[in-house]
Structures are given as C-alpha cells and as structure tokens.
C-alpha cells in the first residue's frame, strides 16, 4: 500500500514541479536597522553567509554549475533548502534568488532582498519580498497544509525572524 502511494506520488511529481496555480502569493517585510547600509549589505549580500544572521539556518555551502551559483542551506531542524542565485547587484545592494528544492509547502519561490539608505544617516532599511505559489497545484479541493495560507505562514515564519535577527546582528558592535 505504501509502495503504491509512493508510485502515485512519483507519477504526480513531474507535473507538480512544472506547473503552478494562477494566484501567486506575496510576503513583503521591511525593517529599519541602525547601521550604515554598506555594513548591512556586507552581511545580507553574502550569498553564503546566511548562518551568520538567520536564526533558523545552521550551515550554508556554495556550488557553481556553469554560470549558475547554488547554495545549500541546512536548517537547525535538519531541513535542507537548495537555492539558485539569480542576481547579486552591489551597486543597488540587491540580491535575487529562487528555491530549487525544499521541504517548505511552496512552489516556484522567488525572493528579492534590497538594502537601502534609511531616513537618517547610519540608518538602513532592508526589504525582503517573496513571490511563490502554494504547494498544491492541481484542481481543488486543496489538501490541508498545502493551501495559500499554509504557504504564506511558512514563508512569513522565515522572513520575519530573519529580518529581526539581521537587525540584532548588524546593530551589534
């Protein structure tokens, strides 16, 4: 029975990986940090540096495949997230990346982190914006835990604590 389920799941996967529903979801959070933008960008713009500032990330490693850069994040709960760097723009202090593999209940996740000069000198605003689809991509009814709300909660649960801790790290000494 278990094997049958695995076969059904496997047969669904290629379709699930290539399709998504029509309503993209958005998580957008901004934080003000009392530190110069260059200092904040040095921390958050390092594609291999997430363990230094994100409380859920234990380790990070980088792999290059042709022109593409990938990172593998190992979470403190043991989960693995693989991501591809889309763009690192030092002039505009902007990082774009997408998830290629993860246990999160999302599909086609794409995010942009932007660092900007704040309202006052020595003040920085950091914006983290993510676009993604829920996990369940087929015709409704939607199974529990795979709906829009679950996807939004999961990503908000990464973005908010991440920015909060980035502030602590950047404002420390």
């Amino acid at each position, binding site marked *: 029975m278990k094997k049958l389920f695995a076969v059904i799941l496997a047969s669904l996967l290629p*379709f699930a990986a*290539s*399709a998504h*529903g*029509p*309503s*993209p979801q*958005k998580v*957008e959070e901004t934080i003000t940090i009392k530190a110069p933008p260059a200092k904040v960008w040095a921390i958050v713009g390092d594609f291999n540096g997430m363990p230094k500032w994100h409380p859920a990330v234990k380790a990070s490693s980088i792999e290059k495949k042709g022109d593409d850069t990938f990172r593998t994040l190992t979470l403190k709960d043991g989960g693995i997230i693989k991501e591809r760097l*889309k763009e690192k723009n030092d002039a505009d202090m902007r990082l*774009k990346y997408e998830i290629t593999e993860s246990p999160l209940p999302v599909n086609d996740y*794409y995010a*942009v982190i932007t660092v900007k000069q704040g309202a006052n000198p020595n003040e920085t605003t950091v914006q983290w*914006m993510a*676009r993604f689809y829920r996990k369940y991509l*087929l*015709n*409704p009814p939607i199974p529990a835990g795979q709906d829009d709300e679950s996807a939004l909660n999961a990503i908000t649960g990464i973005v908010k604590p991440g920015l909060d801790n980035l502030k602590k790290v950047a404002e420390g000494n």
Partner: protein
Amino acid sequence: MLSRIFLIACLIALCSPASAAPALAYITNQGDNTVAVVDLDKNQVIAQLAVGAKPVGVALAPLAQRAFITNVDGGTVSVIDTRSNAVIAEIPAGQSPVGVAATRDGTLLYVADWFNNRLLAIEPLTKTVRFEVEAPQAPAGLQLALDEKRLFVANRDSNDVTVLDAHTGAILKKIAVGTHPFGLTLSPDGQRLYVVNVWSNNVTVLDTRTLETIATIPVGDHPYCATTNSDGSRLYVSNTRADTLSVIDAKTLQTLATVPVGATPEGVAWSAATNRIYIASWMDNELTVVDAATHQVIAHIPTGKESRAFGQFILESR
C-alpha cells in the same frame, strides 16, 4: 446617408482633443480584489472598484463601453461600464478564469478556465455559455484575430498555442512554441501573433495566415506579457524576474533598450493617446509609465496590492 453623417460626427469627435475623454487603464489588483481605473492624461487613479476574488485578466469592448475582469479565485467575470466606471454585473465563468478576450462589440467573451483546461465562450448579456472546448493544458493568454473569426489560446503547460474557430470553438491547429507560453499579443495589422514564453525566456513570432513560426526573439528573465505600438514597429515585453521592459524593433527583431521598471512587471500596454507604455508591477503595487520615445520611466502610479492587468487593459481616448 444618416450613417455617413454619424461617421463624420464620430471622426470629428475623435479628432478634437478638447472633447475627447482621456485614455483609461483598468488595472487588476489581485491582493485587494479591486480594479484601479487610471486616467492616463493625469497619471491618476480616478476610481477604485471592488470586484470578485483575486482579479487577474482584463479585456475591453470599446464599442460596448465595457471592461471585463476575470476573478480567478471567485470563478467569475466582473463587468464594468466604462462610462460610469461602475461594476454592473458579475458573471459565473468556470472555476478559475485567468485569460480573457472580448469581441469589440462586447457580445461575446472568451475565458480561459485554468484548472479545468477549458475555454469558455460566454455571452455577457444573457450570462450563458455559448460553447466550451478542451484547452490542454493550463490555458492562459487569449487573443482574438483582427477579424474576430479566430481565437488564439496560449496553453502554458502543453507549450503550444491552439487556433480556434471563434464562432464554433473548433480547433483548427495546434502550434508548438517555447516553454510555458503565457501572454499573447497581435501586431496591429493582424499578421503576427507574439507569444511570450515564461520559462524559455523568449517570444515566438507566429504568422497568423500560414500559422507557422517566423522567428524567436530572446528577452529577459521570466517574461510574461507583450504589446506593440500602433504602427507595429515596436514590441514591448515585461520580464518579471529581471524587473525590466524589453523594447524590441519588430522589423529587425533586435532589442533596442532594456528599461528597469517596477518589480515583477506583468501586464503591459501601449497608449496611442500618450505614446507611453504602461506596466503593472505586482511587487511594487504600481503602474510604471515609460515614454516610448525616450525609453525613460516618467511616472510611478500607485494602483493597489499586487497589480497584474493580464490582457490589453487600455481604453483609448474617445
């Protein structure tokens, strides 16, 4: 004789700028279930209309003074009277309507029902389905031919465009295009169909008479939608993950400029009244305005949460 007088009166009305109403843009805001109506003379939102759940697509029927909005989560089409800018009806339209096209006289609507892989032809006046046909798989962008005898459907998950008889729904041809075709647009002379391929980062150019591929144009990352100017010399493409607008010479197929615009640009349209390009930015919740002569961004108009405007969303000056 009467009709000739009427025609002349219409021409006079069209040519006198003093009496002309401004061009308007109808922008769907998926995040707050509204449509922003934007006055393109003033670059100002003049109305914010409540529509159904998660609005995406826009089609205009200028002769009927109607705008049609697909609400993907609501399974409906909201009908807007473009004179009063009021929502006057909500029509059932399958389970998950995304792409939409309308005849110029507004008597027939075509709706892509994404999850059900169906194409519905709906009469908005009677709120009845005239016919429905299979559209494998995940039908997205729709485009009527100039003579409204054929309908082109971009099938995102089967990587092709189907050509339908617009009156009967009979499938005339299936044409393989790039990976994940989404937005469609027609050249003003009706001879070319531009198909935007999200995953292969290019645009397929189809000849609408031979139904053969003429060319493939590389564009930016994750392109979504396209439009042309009125003489067809320029093609404009929104690149959702590059946050840019590609400006392409339609003759040489060369990219003339790549303009940074609001983040995650989706719907794109050009207005003859202003010679500007308007791009709905999903991430930045705005309509970005680009001068077609200089390729400079000249305005950012806040429109609402998660602006999409999937379709030809501009009603020209009347």
